[in-house]
């Protein structure tokens, strides 16, 4: 199983790093944009660098959607895993065109509801994980299976 790991820098990147015991067992490639923390990633990992896209940047999301189509065609992952945030949307959307399985993990900072990205990808993804049991009540498709330590 080949993975494509998609995340924004900052807390979302550190969450993905917290999942290392899972993804390190599989062949994998990354999608993120260069930042203080993610820049060093390419020393050890294969990274597709995309446009800086923070929340509510629709134009950048569109550009990254086209990049996503190209990256997914090249990378051919079996599973796309994203810890958010906004970068998840173009890549999960593009995955639908290739029939790639998608998994989204909502940020642990969302204890009482979903992020905008979470709401947007909720109906698109195959598996949707939250890190608070309370979120499952409002979003029945969401699964609570623990937190990313």
């Amino acid at each position, binding site marked *: *199983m080949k993975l494509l790991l998609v995340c924004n820098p900052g807390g979302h990147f550190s969450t993905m790093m917290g999942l290392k015991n899972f993804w390190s067992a599989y062949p994998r490639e990354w999608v993120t944009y260069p930042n203080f923390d993610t820049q060093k990633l390419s020393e050890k990992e294969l990274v597709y660098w995309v446009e800086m896209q923070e929340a509510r940047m629709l134009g950048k999301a569109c550009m990254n959607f086209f990049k996503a189509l190209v990256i997914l065609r090249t990378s051919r992952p079996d599973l796309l895993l994203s810890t958010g945030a906004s970068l998840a949307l173009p890549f999960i959307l593009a995955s639908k065109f290739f029939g790639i399985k998608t998994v989204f993990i909502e940020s*642990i900072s969302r204890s009482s509801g979903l992020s905008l990205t979470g709401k947007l990808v909720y109906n698109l993804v195959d598996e949707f994980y939250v890190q608070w049991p309370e979120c499952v009540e409002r979003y029945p498709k969401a699964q609570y299976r623990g*937190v*990313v330590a």
Partner: protein
Amino acid sequence: MIVYTLGTIFFPFERAVSWLQILLEKEIIVEPVLFQHGATSATKLRHPLLTSVASLTRHEMHEAVKQSSLIISHAGQGSTRMLAEMGACFVLVPRLKRYGEHVDDHQLLFARTVEKFGVHYCTELDQLISYVKQRPCPFQGELLNGPSLVEHLIAHYSSLEPQKQISSLKLP
């Protein structure tokens, strides 16, 4: 020493910069401050006690936190969890939507959630001043101790595709 960090997120956090300026000018802070300003401009802020850096590496941040008597941080989940794990003496200042400091108020909601575990946060300068004068106790215990999602994913996917799994892979 005090570490004052705004995280490395793209949104500016001018309010926190102006608070730091007041704390230094009014001599409420009278010890060296290491200021990680991230994407927020810190050029206006000058003070003999202040060292400003855009970003620290994880290692540098750990070392700085170990040497500090107080850490004042934005309420990002990554920062908060690191500080809690290290048993640091820290206060969170959540970024708020109404000042354009983040897209929504999830940092405030997060701060309210972790408050239940003994984390301190403030939304007003007066509150921060009182925390600087009277330091909170170092964080003890665990912040967010649920079951491990990593273990679930490992079990879930190894049961789905055991034949394709590669135990360790070295990329070229």
